[in-house]
C-alpha cells in the first residue's frame, strides 16, 4: 500500500463532493453549526452544561461524518457495478477503502475543530491525552461500523433510512446531550452497553466532567468493541471484493 496512491485516491474521492456539495455542506457544516448554536443557547452560560453538550456534539458530529457519510460512500462503492468499475483502477481494494476513510476524516476536521476550539475556550483545564484517546476511540468505533454497514447493505438508498434510524437511536441511547450521572439505574445499565456511551464518558473526563463510572473500564470496553468490529470487517472482506459481490 503506497502513500502516494493513498494520497491521490483520497484527493480523487474528495473531488467527488464537488457535485454533491450541498450534501457535504449540510452534513459537515450546517448540521454541526446548528447543533452548536442550540447547545450555546440552551446552556445559558452554564459552563459545565456547555462542556457536557459539546462532548455530545463531538460524538454526534462524528456520527454524521464518520458513520453516515462514510457508510453511504462505502455502500455506493460496493454496489456491484461500481465495484466492477473500480476493478479497472490500478489501486488495491484496501487502498480504495482507506482513501475513503481518509477523505471522510479530512471532511470531519472542520466541524471537529470548531467544537474543540469552543471546548478549549470554556474549559480551564483539558486533559489532552484523554481527549485524544476519546477522539481515537470514536474514530475506531465509527469507522469499522460504517464499513460493516456499507458492505452489508451495498445500496445507498436502502442504507439511508437505516442510518436515519440509527442516528435517532444513538441520540437517545447515548448520553450525548444529558448526564449519565442523573439517570435511573436500569436506564444507565442499558446505556452502558452502548460503546458510544463510553466514548462520551472518556471525552467528558478529559474536560473535567465526571459521570461516576470507572474510566479504565470505558476505555477497555470501547477498545474491545472496536476490535470486534474490525474483526467482523476483516472476516467479511477476507477474500477481497469477491466475498462481498458473491452475496447476491
Amino acid at each position, binding site marked *: 500500500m503506497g502513500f502516494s496512491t493513498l494520497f491521490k485516491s483520497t484527493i480523487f474521492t474528495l473531488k467527488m463532493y464537488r457535485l*454533491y456539495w450541498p450534501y457535504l455542506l449540510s452534513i459537515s457544516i450546517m448540521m454541526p453549526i446548528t447543533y452548536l448554536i442550540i447547545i450555546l443557547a440552551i446552556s445559558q452560560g452554564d459552563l459545565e452544561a456547555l462542556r457536557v453538550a459539546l462532548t455530545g456534539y463531538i460524538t454526534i458530529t462524528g456520527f454524521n461524518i464518520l458513520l453516515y457519510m462514510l457508510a453511504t460512500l462505502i455502500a455506493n462503492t460496493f454496489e456491484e457495478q461500481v*465495484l466492477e*468499475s473500480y*476493478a479497472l483502477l*490500478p489501486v488495491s481494494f484496501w487502498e480504495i477503502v482507506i482513501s475513503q476513510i481518509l477523505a471522510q476524516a479530512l471532511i470531519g476536521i472542520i466541524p471537529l475543530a470548531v467544537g474543540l476550539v469552543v471546548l478549549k475556550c470554556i474549559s480551564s483545564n483539558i486533559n489532552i491525552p484523554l481527549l485524544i484517546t476519546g477522539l481515537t476511540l470514536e474514530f475506531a468505533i465509527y469507522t469499522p461500523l460504517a464499513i460493516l454497514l456499507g458492505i452489508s447493505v451495498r445500496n445507498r438508498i436502502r442504507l439511508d433510512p437505516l442510518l436515519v434510524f440509527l442516528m435517532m437511536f444513538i441520540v437517545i441511547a447515548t448520553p450525548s446531550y444529558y448526564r449519565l450521572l442523573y439517570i435511573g439505574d436500569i436506564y444507565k445499565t442499558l446505556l452502558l452497553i452502548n460503546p458510544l456511551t463510553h466514548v462520551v464518558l472518556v471525552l467528558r473526563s478529559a474536560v473535567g466532567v465526571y459521570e461516576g463510572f470507572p474510566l479504565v473500564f470505558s476505555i477497555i470496553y470501547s477498545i474491545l468493541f472496536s476490535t470486534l468490529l474490525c474483526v467482523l470487517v476483516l472476516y467479511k472482506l477476507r*477474500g477481497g471484493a469477491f466475498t462481498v459481490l458473491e452475496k447476491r
Partner: protein
Amino acid sequence: MREVVVVDRVTKIYPNGVKANIEVSVRACSSEVVCIMGPNGAGKTTLVRQIIGLLKPTSGVIRVFGVDPVKRQDYIKKKVAYTPQLPLTYPAHRVLEVSKYVAELSNTPFERVKEVLEELDLWSVRDRLGYQLSIGQRKLLLLALALIKSGDLLILDEPTTFVDIFKKRLMWSVLLEERKRGKTMIIVSHDIEEVRRLCDRVYIMVAGRIAGKLDSLSDISRGVEVKVYYEKPGEITHLFKRGVVKVYEGLLIAEYNQLIEALEDLENLAINGLNRDIRVLLEYPSVEYIVESLFNKR
C-alpha cells in the same frame, strides 16, 4: 503461443442457487482476440468477472498469466485492463482528471493519455464532468481508461453496446491497432460485425454453458438474411434461387450461407423487380440465429 487465460471446467453457482456458469472451458493465447458471444443472461459477464477475480468459481480452475486471479488480485490489476459492461463512470470527475488519475497510478506518461483521448475523440470533452457525457462517450471513456492503464490482457465486456455506429467504428479502429500491437483481448459482444472485424476465435455461451466454439471466422461469416417487404411476396420468390425462401404476409425472407449468394440474388431482383414498391433489408445473422444454427447442426 503462450496461454494467457485458461478457464478449465468452471462452474459458478451463486449463493442464491443460480447456476451462472456450468463446466465452462475457455482459452486465450497471447496476441489472440477471443470473443464470447451469447444471448442475454447466458453467463458471459459472470465468466468475465471470474477471469478478473471479482468472483470466485464454485468449481474448476481459472488461471490468468498462470496465477489464480482471486488470490493474486494485485498482480491481475497490473496485468489486466478491463472495461465493464455498463457505462458507469465517475459523474463528478472531469474526463481528463480521471484519465490522469489512472495514468499516474499506472505510470503511463501524459503523452499517452492525450494520444488515447484524441484517438477516441474525447480530447475535445476533456473538461466535462462524467455526468455531462453522453452514454456513448462514457463507453468511450471506459475504453480510454483501459487503454491508458494498459496491460498485457484487455478484457472488454460489451465495449460498443449503447454506442452509435460512428463511435463503434472509431472503437473498432482503435482496437484493431491494439490487435496489431499484439495485445491479447477477450471481448464479450452481441455484435456480429464487431466479432467479424476483431476476433480470431469465438465461444458461444447459452444458459451458462459453452454451446459452441468457432475457430474460424468463416463459420460465422455464413448466414446472411435478406428481408424483402412487398405486398405480394409470392410473385418474386423465383428471383431468390440461391437462398432458402420463406414467405409471410407482406414479407419474404431468404436465408443464405454466403454473402455472395445473397448479393447475386439481389442483383437479380434489381434487374427484374425494381419497378415494384419493394423495400429490401440485408442482415447479418443475430446471435440467436447462430446459436440456433449450432444447435441444429448438432
